[in-house]
């Protein structure tokens, strides 16, 4: 077990020195004590609003598996796991940004700041049952939300080029009638294509802690919102550092790019009723990679003693998660629809 010493930062109000948080809807930092608001430029003037005096004195004991630090405001000793890059003091609620977790090779290239507020994530969950027939009664009640956290999730973004060729088999089917005879002509073709295409910023979740499928499901992020990383954006949110290395994450990005590449090649073979690739030499080449932090609201729900995880894209508001099925409702609807259609078919047959 190695032990390192590093600093824990938090962001203080330049006016009053109280803890200050980033407010997504204002796109500014707002002090809840003196109501002062600051934009990024103003925060930077004050050294990202970090109170050096306090932070210089704070000590972080960084072990391989966990981190302990002393809260500058209340003096409590807080424990966080080794992936945590920004967290809160559980006693006084102050933000603690573990700067060494986000520096050096862990220093993000860019960040998309939160645009969606916590309340929007709650509203999204509460309204989740709309248009869905099989949601259990009371599942989307606000009270079922056990925990809701705004987290900056580490992502790898890859610019990938694809080049190569494919060989396909294809068929064209044509039918016509002459008198009482119907003819069907099936023509067989070989198609060859050589070409290339570019993919930009394919995201891959860089944290093992979060389900890749959930992270895939809240895609896409609007990359026009990417901005240069500044740890001040972490105020008021949790943050993770990556624990999936770039080489490992790139496998998934290449797989996705190849799949889309093959589809694009097949789409170019037009006019065929059936087509399938018999050989392809498509290769991927990573042109650029970026390490970014992307905003996600994680919503933990407890219902009937079972836990469910939902996530909301903190930028676009895309809300995903698997809602449990109310089996009784499924049965009732099945009987209802079956009976209705069955009766309708018989009625139509009788009329005709």
């Amino acid at each position: 077990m190695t032990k390192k010493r590093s600093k824990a930062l938090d962001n203080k109000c330049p006016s009053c020195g109280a803890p200050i948080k980033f407010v997504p809807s204002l796109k500014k930092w707002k002090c809840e004590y003196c109501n002062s608001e600051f934009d990024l430029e103003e925060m930077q003037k004050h050294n990202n609003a970090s109170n050096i005096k306090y932070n210089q004195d704070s000590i972080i004991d960084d072990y391989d598996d966990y981190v302990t630090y002393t809260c500058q405001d209340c003096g409590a000793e807080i424990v966080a796991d080794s992936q945590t890059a920004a967290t809160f003091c559980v006693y006084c609620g102050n933000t603690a940004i573990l700067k060494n977790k986000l520096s050096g090779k862990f220093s993000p290239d860019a960040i998309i700041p939160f645009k969606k507020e916590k309340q929007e994530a709650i509203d999204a969950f509460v309204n989740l049952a709309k248009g869905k027939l099989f949601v259990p009664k009371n599942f989307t009640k606000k009270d079922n939300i056990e925990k809701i956290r705004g987290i900056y999730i580490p992502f790898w973004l890859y610019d990938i080029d694809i080049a190569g060729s494919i060989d396909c088999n294809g068929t064209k089917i044509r039918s016509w009638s002459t008198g009482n005879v119907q003819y069907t002509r099936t023509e067989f073709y070989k198609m060859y294509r050589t070409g290339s295409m570019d993919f930009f910023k394919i995201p891959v979740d860089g944290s093992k802690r979060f389900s890749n499928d959930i992270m895939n499901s809240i895609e896409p992020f609007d990359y026009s919102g990417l901005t240069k990383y500044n740890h001040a954006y972490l105020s008021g949110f949790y943050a993770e550092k990556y624990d999936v290395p770039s080489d490992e994450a790139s496998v998934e990005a290449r797989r996705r790019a190849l799949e889309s590449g093959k589809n694009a090649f097949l789409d170019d073979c037009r006019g065929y009723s059936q087509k399938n690739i018999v050989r392809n030499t498509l290769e991927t080449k990573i042109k650029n990679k970026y390490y970014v932090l992307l905003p996600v609201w994680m919503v933990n729900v407890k219902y009937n003693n079972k836990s469910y995880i939902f996530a909301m894209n903190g930028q676009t508001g895309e809300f995903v998660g698997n809602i449990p099925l109310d089996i009784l409702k499924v049965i009732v609807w099945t009987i209802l629809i079956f009976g209705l259609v069955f009766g309708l078919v018989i009625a139509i047959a009788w009329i005709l």
Partner: protein
Amino acid sequence: MKKFYFIIICLFSFVLPVLATPTTYERNENNHYGVNKKWSINDNNLEKILKTPYVNADERIYDFANILDYQTINSLNLLIEDFEKETGFTFVFISTNNYYVNDIDHENYAVDFYDYNDFGINDDHYSGVLLYRNATSLSPYYALYTFGDAQLYFDNQRINEILDSVYNDFILKNYSQGIDTIFKKLNSYYDKGIDSRLKDSYINDMGHLVYKEPFNIPWILAFIIASFITSLFICWNISKQKMVIKAKDAKDYLYKPSINFSFREDKFINSHTTSHHINTSSSRGSGGSRIGSSGGGHGGGGRRG
């Protein structure tokens, strides 16, 4: 002398009635050519009307060929009386020795005989059954034709079964037994009622059998369609609740203007052509009427022999 009287009595009792030819009347304009049914008389059918024997429709047996003996006639009269009482359909027997080359000529003669005489006149559809026997050795033929509502009870399938069952009797001229069998079967079919294939069919004003496909509840079809639509509906709604999906591709990140194909070739390899007949038949099976020169409909059929 006694022997002479016995012969005379026998002659009057047995031979003369058998040899008696049915009385026919002249058709002319004054009696509207003997046609009292609703058929219109025109240039197309006048010749056929005039060729058709005009008879007293109160009788039922017209043995122009003299093939029935006295006993058979008596027995047939009783059978007809019972049949008409039971069914309400008129029953007519006609025999002839006319020579016809084509089977259809037999049918035309028999049907015209029924249509242009007053058989079934008291029934809206002139319902009845006609047993026809052509006894000529050159073109022997026997047939059962049905008119009006009798077409529903005695459809072509049933008539064919009856004709098949009496084939030997008619070939061997065993008319007594053949006629007996015919009535047994007719009565039996009448008791069974209209066949399920014709239960929704009906007879129109002109005596045509209008075939209507009976409504059979399409249980299996309804089950399949209902299962399919229900499955789609349920799966679609379940999928709405399963929002976590593994990303399969990266189409959102493909820069479309960057797609560049430096080589394209589509090579024809071979082809094959298949064909099949389109079934355009509108036939709906047995049960449809044929139309006589009168315009009225009739069913039934006949056999050579």
